[in-house]
């Protein structure tokens, strides 16, 4: 596993530091990296809120068809990303039956990333919410706390590690996404071209050194996200041990 990655780093460093710097400061590449980071952060934030809402209605609410909804949440994990991209293009593209056309716009990047990262926060928050002791909330309510107070002071602090870890996972996934994006974004340089697509373009045109250099940057971001998740998980488990 490490050998291919070592080869990648080796290749990126092959031309010396100057060439590496030239490759990662290429305007088009920088634009792609910026877009990727910005979109991923935005998507992660939307996920943090909406994922928590969905997890909440799946655990605390009761409605017909709930178990079906619960199963459908995993669909983005199961569906090949290229199919996801084609599906989104059909629905939100030029021939959209809803007359919502986001294809080849930056919004398309967001929509596609929201789709593929949907399950992460839901699936990390759900088990914690299930375990959460309702007695605390009832005690707070009987002491006169309003629902918003109960949520802010009791529920949110308990869920926060799970929300953060799910958000970090979603962020990591969004950074590297490729399949869902190639069709719907049109891959316009400086506008809708994300880092993965940029790297792919460099590979296709034979500039493997530039591709490797930007890949190393992406690799570093992924590693950072993973370390963050690891630290959060450590905090969650320590929290559990203390209880």
């Amino acid at each position: 596993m490490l050998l291919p990655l070592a080869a990648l780093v080796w290749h990126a460093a092959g031309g010396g530091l100057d060439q590496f710097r030239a490759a990662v400061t290429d305007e088009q590449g920088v634009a792609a990296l910026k877009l990727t980071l910005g979109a991923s952060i935005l998507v992660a934030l939307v996920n943090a809120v909406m994922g928590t809402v969905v997890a909440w209605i799946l655990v605390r609410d009761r409605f017909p068809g709930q178990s079906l909804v619960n199963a459908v949440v995993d669909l983005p994990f199961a569906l090949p990303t290229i199919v996801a991209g084609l599906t989104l293009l059909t629905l939100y593209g030029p021939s959209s039956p809803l007359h919502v056309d986001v294809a080849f716009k930056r919004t398309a990047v967001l929509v596609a990333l929201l789709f593929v990262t949907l399950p992460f926060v839901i699936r990390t928050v759900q088990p914690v919410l299930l375990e959460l002791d309702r007695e605390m909330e009832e005690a707070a309510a009987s002491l006169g706390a309003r629902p918003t107070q109960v949520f802010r002071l009791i529920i949110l602090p308990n869920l926060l590690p799970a929300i953060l870890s799910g958000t970090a996972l979603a962020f990591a996934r969004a950074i590297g996404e490729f399949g869902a994006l190639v069709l719907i974004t049109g891959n316009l340089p400086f506008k809708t071209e994300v880092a993965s697509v940029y790297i792919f373009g460099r590979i296709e045109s034979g500039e493997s050194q530039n591709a490797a250099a930007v890949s190393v940057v992406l690799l570093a971001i992924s590693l950072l996200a993973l370390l963050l998740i690891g630290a959060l998980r450590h905090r969650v488990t320590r929290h559990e041990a203390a209880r």
Partner: protein
Amino acid sequence: MKRLGRYALRLLGLSYLFVLLALPIGLIFRRAFQDGFGPAWDAVTTPAAKHALLVTLMIAAIAVPANTIFGIICAIAVVRHRFPGKNLVNAIVDLPLALSPIVVGLAFLLLFGTGGWLEGLPFDVVFALPGMVLATIFVSLPFVVREVVPVLREIGTEQEQAAATLGAGGWQTFRRVTFPAIRWAVAYGVVLTMARALGEFGAVSVVSGRVIGKTESLTLHVEERYQSFDYVGAYAASVLLAMLAIATLVAMTVFRPREQTR
């Protein structure tokens, strides 16, 4: 007032899922069959489509068992044994989840391609099936490990120790004690691995070279059909993949670790 809030929340959550999930999937089925069942069937039975399906299934048939066996061994090593660099192994196992598949593909290309360290192998890796299999194994590696590790932690070592005191060998202990305890986690991990292996696109598209009728997997076929404006072909192949995904989903619901179901 409280009830109103609950309904509002329910509506918000469900419409988010509907707009993002249910609507698009429904539409793809409609588009594939818009000219009736015949054209869609013809589109997925062309030689290129059939070969693409075969390639996808072959990749999955190698990658899934390999990752299952490796996953179980790796999980046992991480949970039951102490060795230097254990934390590093832990972090590396998760890496494919966070890494762009394009980066994975490029890494393999640089390792096995022209001028790479392992260029001189007796068989082709890059732009051929072995490379696609390796890339798929890489990206679907974490799933079995991640499902099995928490279960192994949870069951503890008492039963295994008891088996050992009663004279069971290592293999016997694994087969009679450990494996029955982790088999549902393994099954769930296998389902996730399968989903990822069948649907992999980015890494495979870099290492395969996309030779139609040779190294084109079903996901690559979808894109190739779409780019050549054969929309029925693209949608029909997508429906095939979506049906595999739904089958996976059903299996996931069946095998999901018990504490997450209600």
